[in-house]
């Protein structure tokens, strides 16, 4: 390593003299020398803006600034910012995971210092170098305009008759995230901590003949090295399909598959060590596409986890039929049939995955990780490291975006733990951005053959699909994906007869998995575009066609899923009115168009990943004598707002000031188990568990107060901040006092627990539980597009998204989920693609090439919340974080057809393809 130099830096008005290598960036010095961890790292090469600081007032990428050259200049970081902007961001609901926010604030600050009264377009330009994966930017832009215009946004009050439900409570951690004080995993460090790296395969498919670690071992500063042989236990988040190991044992199965992990005194040394590792590979023919996978000239896995020889690359096949499909097609007046292709894409959270592991002297393991599933990670760590689960603790610091991309154990967590055990020192592994792309588990590419029939008056008669799913090298959640691609299509537009076959194939590419809207984004695209085609064929308004086939609330789908509430009609009405559909559609000039699409999605699954007799979710409330309640729950706050949701529920039930409710989540030592943040299950399941606990506590508090006041229990009324006597509201007791009273009356600490217990749901057939959920959300979108018929350039002008969330416990957070879903779907529709070259190498392994939407071109989204008050959800609530992603892709596709008469059957809708189609050459 080069000689360190002494740097004199002026940061936030303070002089610092630090010793750092001459080659370090300002980002490295700020984060790792000055402990100013508010400045984040998302790509380390200029593509994301998370590291933005001000240098002499200019917004500056600290990852592309040498610290040496920042000397003599005024550096400002988020830690030195006043709270004006941060408060406006909070009030506008502009914070989700928070990881992009410090950088975003710095860019906004630079703008306002230069231009105190910017127009919206200037704000969008000024934030154009800062990627946000969560919000779709609308609220961020609004917040900056609010500051410029002196607008103060007050939170809305609770809904009528409620104490907290319906109020826009700010997230408990939003200010802390904005100002950079809430730690994400890479912000943590421990005494003696080492840094790990993983050596990855250069081959798409090869047998490992030998690994020589001797030179790496000999390198000074290297403390531990592990290979697949050290961690041979196969695992999978789905316990039925354990087909991967922490590091490869026999074969590598994609370019980037992990082979060796090293821990060293710093990342530079770890990298140097890996360059000294010699792996002897025997390259094998690679399987890189569906046709090859199906023809199976080579097998990605030669044996399965039970040791049985495999004959093909198909790792899951589902074929189901419901109703009279052939008769349905025979009765149809119009049938559309075509093949659709949905390209793979990935989550790309701005925070790269990171894990930190430590073994204490007593042999207990703690792993801090940016994970959505602390519980499954806990289980897998115990299995793979062969350690008693009672000795394992998983802590989830703040998570900087996940979207399904952090919802299973990854090699870095297992390797960090193994390396830490070998080294006897804590080990941190932080993925590079390229590794985040390689870890993937994103959207599966799917080729879909779909056939749909309807009568002349617009009644759907039958639907049939045949789907090939490109799975990548391992299973991940792929078994579920395969089922979902068929099971979840049967509402909110009723399919009276339905047959599907779906097959998932192994290929020599990074493993696909669950991305937001898991399993149904792809078939939904095909189905919703096919419905549009039918409408055209039958001369019907596509909104009307969907109305005529609306699944009624309280009914069963053709595959026996019970759907308590379906908000399809109010959602369609809302987007029809908001978009001016009736007045404008068909009258727009050539090149402009409107398109509609709808969807339905689960609020958790009745059938958990690990079936047990124990609850899916547990919540514990603990009161202290200051009048504060701590809610603990295993749920993972990943930016979606689950911590705020728990506060709303407790505050609603007990009338307690939300600020007096503390949340402890995502620490397996401190919280009851919750299965994790996936399948849109948290609001419904943890919400009900919290409600049960709070109601139990409330009952006991009511009893204590009634006894104290000498009145019947029904005379006690729970109010906001204080409880009072029904007949004499002047007589009241603050919540804190009631808590103390109850503790006194019970004579022991005031604790209450609640749980969500899975009920048996679903169809009577084998597999019928898959897709069965206590409640389903409904969404309808209208998109307006503008196509340049000469260049193929496509602009999404505006999106109207009506989402039936059952009940908006916190309207601002729900709207944020809807907007964020649309934004992510917009990227899938227009730009994003996770594709590979002929050698299986990722074509776009960086945020620059991959291309997340920026603030400049992202369309405005109007989120409209529809409330159907589902009897199954807490206060009627159901999911909001995934379903609203589905319709945007087909809505844009249908709008393109409306605009220029071209039907694109392949995502993303690239201008080159659009132009080719327009010119009849595509």
């Amino acid at each position, binding site marked *: 390593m080069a000689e360190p130099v002494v740097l004199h830096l002026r940061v936030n008005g303070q002089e610092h003299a630090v010793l750092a290598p001459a080659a370090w960036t300002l980002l490295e010095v700020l984060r790792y020398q000055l402990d100013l961890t508010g400045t984040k790292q998302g790509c380390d090469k200029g593509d994301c803006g998370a590291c933005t600081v001000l240098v002499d007032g200019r917004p500056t990428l600290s990852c*592309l600034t040498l610290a040496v050259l920042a000397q003599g200049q005024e550096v400002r970081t988020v830690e030195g910012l006043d709270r004006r902007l941060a408060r406006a961001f909070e009030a506008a609901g502009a914070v989700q995971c928070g990881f992009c926010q410090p950088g975003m604030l710095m860019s906004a600050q630079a703008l306002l210092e230069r231009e105190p009264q910017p127009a919206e377009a200037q704000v969008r330009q000024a934030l*154009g170098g800062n990627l946000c994966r969560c919000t779709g930017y609308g609220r961020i832009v609004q917040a900056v305009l609010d500051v410029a215009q002196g607008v103060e946004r007050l939170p809305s009050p609770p809904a009528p008759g409620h104490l907290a439900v319906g109020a826009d409570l700010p997230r408990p951690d939003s200010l802390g995230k904005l100002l950079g004080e809430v730690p994400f995993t890479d912000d943590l460090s421990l005494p003696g901590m080492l840094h790990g790296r993983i050596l990855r395969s250069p081959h798409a498919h090869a047998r490992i003949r030998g690994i020589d670690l001797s030179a790496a071992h000999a390198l000074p500063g290297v403390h531990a090295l592990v290979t697949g042989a050290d961690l041979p236990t196969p695992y999978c988040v789905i316990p039925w399909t354990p087909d991967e190991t922490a590091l490869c044992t026999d074969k590598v199965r994609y370019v980037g598959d992990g082979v060796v992990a090293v821990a060293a005194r710093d990342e530079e040394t770890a990298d140097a060590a890996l360059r000294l590792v010699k792996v002897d590979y025997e390259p094998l023919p690679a399987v890189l596409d569906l046709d090859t996978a199906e023809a199976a000239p080579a097998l990605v896995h030669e044996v399965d986890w039970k040791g049985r020889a495999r004959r093909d690359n198909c790792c899951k096949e589902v074929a189901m039929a419901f109703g009279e499909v052939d008769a349905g097609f025979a009765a149809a007046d119009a049938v559309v049939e075509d093949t659709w292709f949905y390209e793979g894409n990935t989550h790309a959270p701005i925070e790269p995955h990171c894990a930190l592991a430590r073994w204490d002297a007593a042999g207990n393991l703690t792993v801090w990780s940016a994970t959505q599933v602390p519980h499954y990670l806990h289980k897998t760590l115990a299995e793979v490291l062969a350690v008693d689960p009672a000795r394992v603790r998983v802590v989830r610091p703040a998570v900087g975006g996940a979207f399904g991309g952090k919802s299973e154990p990854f090699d870095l967590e297992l390797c960090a733990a193994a390396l830490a055990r070998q080294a006897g020192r804590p080990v941190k592994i932080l993925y590079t951005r390229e590794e985040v792309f390689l870890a993937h588990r994103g959207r599966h590419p799917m080729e879909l053959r779909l056939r749909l029939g309807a009568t002349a008056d617009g009644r759907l008669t039958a639907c049939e699909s045949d789907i090939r799913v490109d799975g990548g090298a391992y299973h991940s959640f792929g078994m579920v994906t395969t089922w979902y691609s068929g099971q979840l299509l049967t509402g909110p537009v009723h399919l009276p007869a339905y047959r599907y076959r779906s097959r998932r194939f192994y290929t020599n590419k990074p493993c696909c998995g669950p991305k937001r809207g898991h399993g149904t984004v792809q078939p939904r695209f095909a189905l919703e575009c096919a419905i549009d085609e039918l409408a055209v064929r039958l001369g019907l308004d596509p909104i009307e066609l969907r109305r005529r086939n609306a699944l009624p609330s309280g009914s069963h789908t053709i595959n026996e899923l019970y759907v308590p509430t379906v908000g399809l009609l109010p959602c369609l009405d809302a987007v029809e009115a908001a978009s001016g559909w009736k007045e404008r559609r068909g009258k727009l000039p050539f090149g402009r168009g409107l398109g509609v699409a709808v969807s339905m999605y689960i609020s958790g699954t009745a059938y958990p990943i690990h079936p047990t007799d124990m609850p899916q979710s547990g919540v514990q409330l603990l009161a202290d004598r200051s009048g504060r309640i701590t809610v603990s729950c295993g749920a993972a706050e990943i930016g979606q707002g689950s911590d705020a949701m728990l506060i709303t529920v407790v505050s609603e039930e007990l009338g307690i000031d939300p600020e007096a409710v503390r949340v402890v989540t995502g620490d397996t030592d401190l919280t009851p188990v919750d299965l994790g943040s996936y399948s849109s299950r948290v609001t419904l399941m943890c919400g009900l568990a919290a409600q049960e606990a709070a109601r139990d506590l409330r009952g006991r508090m009511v009893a204590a107060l009634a006894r104290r006041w000498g009145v019947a229990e029904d005379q006690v009324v729970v109010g906001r901040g204080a409880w009072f006597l029904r007949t004499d509201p002047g007589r009241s007791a603050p919540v804190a006092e009631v808590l103390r009273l109850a503790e006194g009356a019970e004579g022991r600490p005031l604790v209450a627990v609640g749980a969500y217990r899975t009920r048996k749901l679903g169809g009577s057939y084998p597999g019928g539980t898959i897709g069965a959920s206590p409640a389903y959300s409904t969404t309808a979108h209208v998109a307006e597009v503008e196509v340049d018929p000469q*260049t193929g350039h496509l602009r999404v002008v505006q999106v109207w998204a009506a989402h039936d969330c059952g009940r908006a416990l916190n309207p601002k957070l729900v709207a944020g989920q809807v907007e964020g879903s649309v934004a992510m779907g917009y990227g899938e529709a227009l730009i994003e693609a996770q594709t590979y070259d002929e050698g299986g*190498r990722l074509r776009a392994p960086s945020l620059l090439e991959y291309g997340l939407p920026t603030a400049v071109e992202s369309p405005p989204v109007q989120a409209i919340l529809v409330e159907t008050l589902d009897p199954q959800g807490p206060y009627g609530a159901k999911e909001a974080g995934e379903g609203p992603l589905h319709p945007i892709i087909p809505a844009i596709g249908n709008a393109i057809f409306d605009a220029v008469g071209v039907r694109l059957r392949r995502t993303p809708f690239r201008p080159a393809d659009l132009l080719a189609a327009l010119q009849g050459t595509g």
Partner: protein
Amino acid sequence: MLRMQGFTVQVARSPEEAVALYAAAPDAAFIAGGTDLLPEIKLGLSQPRTLVAIGTALPATVQDEGADLVLGAGLRLEQVAALGLPALSAAAAHVGSPQVRAAGTLGGNVMLSPRCMYYNQTPAWRASLGGCMRAEGPLCRVTGSAARCVATQCSDTLPALLVLGARLRLCSPAGTREVPLADLLRYDGMRPMDLAPGELLTHVILPRPAPGTRCRVDKLAARGSIDFPMLVTAVLLRLRGAVVEELRIAVGAVSPQPRLLPVDAWVGRPLHEAAVGELADLAWQKVRPVASVEGDVAWRREVARVTVRRALESLRAEA
């Protein structure tokens, strides 16, 4: 993270000192804003042992020298964007993101390293590929031949500078020279400019356009911000009545070399509808995008035709 190591930094206070430091150090590189060089170092594409920092050594001034406007190579792109210069300011405003423009310099943009999807990758990625002729391998991965590297010159400002007839002032231990930009550009991704090692760009010189000159630059990119261009077109037009007095069209970001199209035949002729169409077709004929960066090549070619036509139409309408 993408850790860098193995270099020291020397800060030059004048152009002369910069070239002297460069000449004295083995494996030196100039660093101005660093927004292009540091990603290259982080990816192991460049392994300098000495970085000669020229940010404060370079002039960041705008001098009016009568017939010429002389721009310091140290001007940051956001400053260039704010100068209100025809073509060039708009081109500078197109570069990357606000942060890139706040640090990146005009000099760095002119000297931008050509880009290729087989090259601008991590060492592990390139190792999997087996490298290319520009780094670690024998052949160009785009063409499959060893004739030359066809990485794309993605600079946003070069086409604008070409139509403006810019000259570059270069400083080296041997002294100073001034050369028309067009004479320096080469069709070679590994040596996109005909410069001696260690030559420093100090000034970009723009001849003052004749009154009535109008310009336009257009950039084609996947997103509204951050992205490098997939096509840049710059058009300079001066009309007397309907007759073309001066016309230059440059196209960049399609190959290693941004180029002026041969449009002299249209000078002295009226720019009516048919001539606009001919010039657009000429753009289509001459633009042969190379598949070294993202973007379908046939499509970029077609968009070049449309953009040139629209630019001419809008400039003509401004009259």
